[in-house]
């Protein structure tokens, strides 16, 4: 039922795939679609606006010249930017505190705090071999304390005995001292659900936090949340101070835009996701998975890979043209080195060719392994752009600088330059022979293979 970003963008770009150049107006048209997709995925409007502006800056500026199918290119940029905004890498709970470390659970009514408290307890027992005490500070919801107690029994984790009539701050203090007495490593404090606009209740949870000094204060939020996600996350972060976010009900068919909204307004990592009612249904949050979910495309990964491939293909073709024109500079050599490394390095490359098993060993003996490739790249990296374009200006003092800058020797610098020169003349010869010389992506340019075994 969702129209995926890929579909809506291919609509926009169908008419210009042949033209192949991303202009500002094309990007703007594409971003209208991106905007709708994000809003339908429940990303909050201010976050959508900010996001779209970033994409525009990236798409129109730097990558505008590549002639990948424009839709794919924008999808890739959108996806990459979203993954970055979602935090890039997965991040687990922080337990670095003197025991008993306190973890405080906060959030709106019914978001899943109590269930998630038990899930985290189970996870920490099983994975981190921790001793845990759970305590319910919820004196409001009918049978809330009973709920946590039953969950504790299900997972065999201790819960603080209920003392009727005790106030939440006092329960927290009692939980911490009980944990200390019992030698528990971690205390999980479940709190009552509260509206972020309920000042009395927000003050209560702030007081609980002040009294219990938690190492993690986790905002538990429903992944199905709509535009209100920004208000909720901002209010809890400002008034209580959260260290991480947990999104529940990721087992639903919601698109999960709240993840982006909450992360964007608080800057706090989304640490875990709830994926079911059962107590083992909790997982680490992976930004890339959520990104493709928000964008409504399971196919984004392959798509992006395809785009990347196309970009490489294009690089290779451009390189071939330059070679034919005899303009093979050190920038091009570096691109080639990088591509070789990406293709599995020298070993990987050679193992794809038939009958080179023996040669491989020879090469290793000659020190021509992947490390050599990296060192060669380091030398080129130390050059100025001008030097890379005009290898001729590299005199003795410049070469010394390069060797020092890349942590190599003058000999290595000379060897690299010789290789580059030989490749250049090889290409000129090829040109004379009238070869079209189109290289498949990642293929060794002529001359290089010839050079290698000789070291």
């Amino acid at each position, binding site marked *: 039922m969702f129209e995926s970003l890929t579909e809506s963008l291919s609509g926009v770009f169908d008419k210009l795939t042949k033209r192949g150049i991303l202009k500002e107006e094309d990007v703007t048209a594409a971003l209208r679609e991106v905007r709708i997709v994000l809003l339908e995925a429940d990303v909050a409007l201010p976050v959508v606006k900010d996001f779209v502006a970033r994409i525009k800056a990236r798409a129109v500026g730097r990558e505008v010249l590549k002639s990948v199918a424009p839709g794919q290119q924008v999808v890739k940029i959108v996806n990459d930017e979203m993954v970055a905004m979602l935090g890039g890498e997965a991040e687990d709970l922080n337990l670095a505190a003197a025991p008993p470390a306190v973890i405080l659970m906060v959030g709106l009514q019914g978001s899943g705090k109590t269930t998630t408290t038990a899930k985290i307890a189970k996870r920490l027992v099983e994975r981190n071999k921790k001793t845990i005490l759970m305590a319910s500070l919820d004196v409001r919801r009918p049978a809330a304390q009973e709920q946590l107690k039953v969950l504790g029994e299900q997972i065999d984790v201790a819960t603080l005995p209920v003392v009727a009539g005790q106030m939440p701050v006092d329960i927290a203090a009692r939980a911490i001292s009980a944990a200390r007495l019992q030698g528990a490593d971690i205390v999980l404090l479940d709190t009552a659900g509260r*509206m972020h606009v309920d000042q009395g209740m927000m003050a209560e949870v702030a007081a609980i936090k002040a009294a219990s000094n938690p190492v993690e204060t986790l905002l538990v939020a429903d992944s199905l949340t709509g535009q209100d996600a920004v208000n909720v996350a901002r209010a809890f972060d400002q008034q209580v101070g959260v260290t991480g976010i947990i999104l529940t009900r990721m087992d639903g068919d919601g698109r999960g835009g709240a993840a982006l909204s909450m992360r964007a307004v608080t800057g706090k990592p989304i640490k875990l996701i709830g994926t079911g009612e059962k107590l083992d249904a909790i997982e680490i949050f992976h930004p890339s998975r959520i990104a493709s979910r928000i964008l409504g495309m399971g196919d984004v990964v392959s798509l992006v890979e395809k785009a990347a491939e196309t970009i490489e293909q294009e690089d290779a073709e451009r390189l071939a043209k330059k070679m034919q024109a005899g303009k093979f500079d050190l920038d091009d050599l570096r691109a080639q080195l990088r591509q070789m490394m990406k293709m599995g390095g020298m070993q990987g490359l050679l193992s794809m060719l038939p009958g080179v098993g023996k040669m491989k060993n020879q090469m290793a003996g000659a020190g021509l392994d992947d490390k050599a490739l990296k060192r060669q790249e380091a030398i080129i990296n130390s050059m100025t752009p001008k030097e890379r374009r005009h290898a001729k200006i590299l005199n003795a003092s410049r070469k010394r600088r390069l060797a020092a800058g890349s942590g190599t020797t003058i000999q290595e610098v000379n060897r690299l330059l010789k290789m580059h020169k030989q490749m250049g003349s090889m290409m000129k010869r090829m040109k004379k022979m009238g070869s079209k010389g189109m290289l498949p992506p990642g293929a060794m340019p002529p001359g290089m293979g010839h050079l290698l075994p000789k070291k």
Partner: protein
Amino acid sequence: MADPEDAKKGWFSRLRDGLRRSKSNLSSGINEIFAKRRLDEAALQELEDLLISSDLGVATAGRVTERLRRAKFEKNISPDEVRGALAEEIEKVLEPVAQPLEIGTEHRPHIILMVGVNGTGKTTTIGKLAHQLKEQGRSVMLAAGDTFRAAAIEQLEIWGERAGVPVVRTKTGGDAAGLTFEAVDKARSAGVEVLIIDTAGRLQNRQELMDELAKIIRVIRKKDASAPHHIILVLDATTGQNALRQVEVFGELADITGLIMTKLDGTARGGVLVACAEKFGLPVHTIGVGESIEDLHAFEARAFAEAIAGTGNKSEAS
């Protein structure tokens, strides 16, 4: 703790309080946009954005804005007039679905089944509804049909006590369909007028749980072919566009007859209800505006539309 003062205030003013407390208040947004302005393209675009911020969704927000364009485009229009016109457009969509829960006397017991996604407020709403019916002099019985979630039964029992109505229960892990069967019998022999059945929360994309719900409904129909007389889907106001999916799937697989929206006492405006009304036209009976037993109110199209548009806010604020 719930402020007793708060509890006494009308739901509408509490609803407005919630909206007013929100910084990105829609009506103040409108004030910014339309102070001494013509209703031009840019203004309409911003207005559409503001509706989107209330969870109306892109399509519905677009249609409401379009109607406003047709009526008032390029006219000089004051912020108050824009708000009025906006509230009117929203009201037009909601008007036909604002239908109170009619519980006649032809069926005894009149059976109501509460369904919905996890944590939306089913059990709490049952408590509130039981209380309301009791106040009206009706006899009510509750059935603790959530045999899955920890302490769900105990939770409903406490609500039963609060409302002063009996609760039929089994043990946790028991068979929900079996319990339902038994509850219908008990309600019959006790001669109560209304039986409200709680169910476990379930996500609409979980086929096995939806099948289980279908089975509960079948069991009830075996006892009384005309029942359940109401199957109410409880929606959480903080939910975004997924609410449309919830209504669609619960509608298909569980024959829902109406909606209740809870948690309108926060800053969420529940605009997705406008989209639901447009798309499905299912009755909206009541709204939940808090956690106390009194916090259940009739759904009024005008009031809801005004709360979204912020009409009359100016005179009441300050």
